[in-house]
């Protein structure tokens, strides 16, 4: 089956400087994220990486490698009134929210001393 053309201009921009293997890796990580208030997940990642001064793939890898096991979760169960929750471990944190199907997705990943 022919591949569908990519309609998200931000995804095109996000993938353009990577090899096809890296692009596939990025697309795999993007499915772990929520677009939140951005037009798309790709736009969110481009903006995060630009603000934090980090390569987008490197940023996605760091968020992907955050291990929720053993992390402190706030609130312990469920979500706050704004549908968010945070996992923190060491100096790293992952802010998440549930998508429309109730699956937890990443909104942002941060390091306190980055």
């Amino acid at each position: 089956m022919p591949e569908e053309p990519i309609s998200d201009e931000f995804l095109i921009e996000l993938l353009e400087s990577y090899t096809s293997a890296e692009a596939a890796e990025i697309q795999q990580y993007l499915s772990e994220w929520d677009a939140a208030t951005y037009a798309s997940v790709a736009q969110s990642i481009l903006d995060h990486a630009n603000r934090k001064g980090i390569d987008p793939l490197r940023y996605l890898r760091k968020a992907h490698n955050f291990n929720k096991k053993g992390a402190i979760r706030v609130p312990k169960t469920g979500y706050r009134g704004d549908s968010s929750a945070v996992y923190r471990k060491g100096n790293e944190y992952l802010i998440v929210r549930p998508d429309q199907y109730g699956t937890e997705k990443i909104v942002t990943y941060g390091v306190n001393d980055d």
Partner: protein
Amino acid sequence: MTKAILNQQELIKKNISQLLAQLTNIYQNTRGERQEIAIQFPPEDEEFSLLEELELLTVNLRGYASQIQSTGQIVNQAQAIEQLQAMRVLNIPQIASFYFGSNNSYEQIKSYIRTLDYLRLLLLEYLQFQSD
């Protein structure tokens, strides 16, 4: 929509784009202060920390601003207006307590907080022009 209103809306859009760039610069310059804040304002077990609240606020506001910058509009405008009205920066207890409680210090982060709130107000102004 009249030409005058369109021009005003274009000006706000330009201002939003400039603020996004300015916020990126301020954010990058606050690294030292953020490192200190991570130590001085550690997270409590049942609450988001000051830095986590700031990060979430940053992402929510930058997301809306990025949509306007790229398409001139926001999906689910009515919901966005409601959320932006509820997102008053100094209504977040950790931010208010830090902002008013640490006199003469962390001036760059305080400037960042003020600029974020200005961005929130500009986004509301832009959306209100659209719904007129």
